[in-house]
């Protein structure tokens, strides 16, 4: 056992963490229409490796990683072998999930299901809003530790992977109570007849009748916007709402905006490096559980910034704010608690200040 801390936690099962690094994140048209960042596979592999030190040190036994053809998982596995052969390893066992890669979003979803079924206590997700959304859709109750490597990064954390690794390990080993480590998120549900889908940040109704290249980058095409939360320092469509009425991740409310030709003009950072003016002629608070009808006659619906659904004349999609969205790891409060409780320090170290 490599663990550097006492292992007096519940371990009648192996402590397993899943890691999903979406190799395709960060390649959409916003590389062209904006200056969105590009995360290389090598950087994603580095980030995963930065999780492994904390995992091993804090008693995670096994890490299941999604296979991919860009070499992220393979690089990690190779490093783990080298690490082990040098005998200096504090890394947990690494295993690639046995599954067929298709290169599509199904990969992330299949991997998440397999990890859940194998008993993973949390998944670390490296991706953008879209990656987190598709995973939350299939494993809604499995805690996600979020790391941004996508295009629109409102939902996931922008933070150093090492720290996320520490917090994740403290959570999965039960050293800190889930009431502190986890945060319950809101989500927006879209219903169109039988069809249902979710967004974690925003639902944008566009006048474009096709899904096309997915992103929404022309403000003139935006008709309606629903947000679960709106942080003024965020980027993307939710920042439009934030400039009118900021909403935290915790308050039980959402916001619904409709665009027009006359009304309040809002300047917002709708994409990396891009400030655009949007004219808002209607704004209302969304109450949880209420179904809000989309007024636009035809168009497409973007979930967390990517057009996913086309709807036609005669169809009325509805949007509902739900408070029981996916649980995510609250890295700041977890580490604050770790400090407060002295989890990472020996008792005598704590006595130094007295």
């Amino acid at each position, binding site marked *: 056992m490599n663990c550097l801390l006492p292992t007096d936690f519940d371990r009648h099962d192996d402590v397993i963490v899943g890691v999903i690094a979406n190799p395709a994140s960060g390649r959409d048209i916003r590389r062209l229409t904006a200056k969105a960042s590009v995360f290389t596979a090598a950087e994603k592999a580095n980030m995963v490796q930065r999780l492994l030190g904390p995992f091993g040190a804090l008693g995670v036994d096994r890490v299941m990683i999604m296979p991919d053809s860009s070499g992220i998982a393979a690089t990690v596995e190779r490093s783990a072998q080298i690490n082990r052969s040098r005998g200096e390893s504090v890394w947990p066992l690494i295993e690639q999930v046995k599954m067929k890669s298709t290169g599509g979003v199904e990969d992330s979803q299949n991997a998440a299901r397999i990890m859940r079924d194998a008993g993973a206590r949390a998944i670390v997700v490296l991706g953008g809003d879209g990656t987190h959304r598709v995973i939350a859709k299939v494993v809604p109750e499995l805690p996600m530790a979020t790391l941004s490597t996508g295009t629109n990064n409102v939902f996931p954390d922008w933070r150093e992977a090492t720290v996320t690794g520490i917090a994740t390990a403290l959570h999965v080993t039960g050293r800190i109570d889930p009431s502190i480590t986890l945060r319950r998120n809101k989500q927006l549900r879209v219903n169109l007849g039988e069809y249902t889908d979710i967004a974690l940040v925003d639902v944008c109704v566009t006048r*474009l009748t096709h*899904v096309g290249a997915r992103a929404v980058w022309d403000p003139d095409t935006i008709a309606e916007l629903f947000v679960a939360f709106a942080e003024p320092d965020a980027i993307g469509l939710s920042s439009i709402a934030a400039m009118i009425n900021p909403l935290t991740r915790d308050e039980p409310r959402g916001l619904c905006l409709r665009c027009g030709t006359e009304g309040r003009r809002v300047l917002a950072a709708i994409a990396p490096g891009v400030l655009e003016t949007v004219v808002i002629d209607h704004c209302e608070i969304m109450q949880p559980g209420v179904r809000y009808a989309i007024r636009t006659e035809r168009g497409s619906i973007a979930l967390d910034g990517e057009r996913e659904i086309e709807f036609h004349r005669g169809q009325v999609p509805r949007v509902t704010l739900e408070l029981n969205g996916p649980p995510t790891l609250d890295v700041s409060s977890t580490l604050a608690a770790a400090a407060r409780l002295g989890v990472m320090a020996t008792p005598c170290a704590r006595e130094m200040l007295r």
Partner: protein
Amino acid sequence: MNTELNRESLLKAYRMMRTIREFEERVHTDFATGEIPGFVHLYAGEEASATGVCMHLSGNDYIASTHRGHGHCIAKGVDPAGMMAEIWGKETGTCKGKGGSMHIADLSKGMLGANGIVGGGGPLICGTALAAKLRGDKTVGVCFFGDGASNQGTILEAMNLATVWNLPAIFVAENNGYAETTSPNYSVACENIADRAAAFGMPGVIVDGFDFFAVYEAAGEAVKRAREGGGPTLIEVKVSRYYGHFEGDQQKYRAEGEVQKLRNEKDCLMQFRRHVTADGDISAAELDAIDAEVLAMIDDSVVRAKADPKPGPEELLTDVYVSY
């Protein structure tokens, strides 16, 4: 805004894609009879790529194509009847029967040629784009190339040069999953061809090549950027081909039922039809009428191609500065 297509443009795009499809299906059938000579590489399945890109181009813009060039030619406005005659090796062909399927070109339409050399088009497009830039005429150059070609030095050198000279060039990587029998999973060292753009200092984006609208939007932005002096872009179009590498290929390297599944579930024409008829702006009958017209036009081009004369013997020694 490039993303909004009026009725007329939608019908034009549909006709273009249908023409390519019909042309290729017809060459496929005729090849099987043994009457068509040489190596023929069909573009069926990839129509949305050429169409989505070329809908943004005018006759003064240039494209460079590949050995799988019929679709690019048609989308750039080359006369399908002349192409058919060329494939049949006739004097009335686009290149008088001297070039064949792999070398169809029409400079008057800004079509710099299909190409028998994998990766041959990249440097050439840097050249047309350089000329456009020096003249300041706001035209652009588009290099179509395959996933296999993405590994060719010429393509990589061309992308670097395009950024160094800030050229109005667009690199369209048509990733159809195979280079002959070899998958990019094996031959391309990174996950996506688009990933390489970063290394050349240009944006790289990925689009679904079965979705005309996705290609159209991405190409629209790239062309706009190039025309405005913003420099080159790499667009990776993820797509597939319906037939073998060339006609006669047994395709043992493919999965069983692979193509049928794509035809049933993803086909670009099928998706396009479903999309544009959903709101009743365009009727299925209108599209059917286009199908019928295209079919008749292709039929006619084959009848003519078959009847047309072969080039005369004197043609052997012309079009070269001197022959010995």
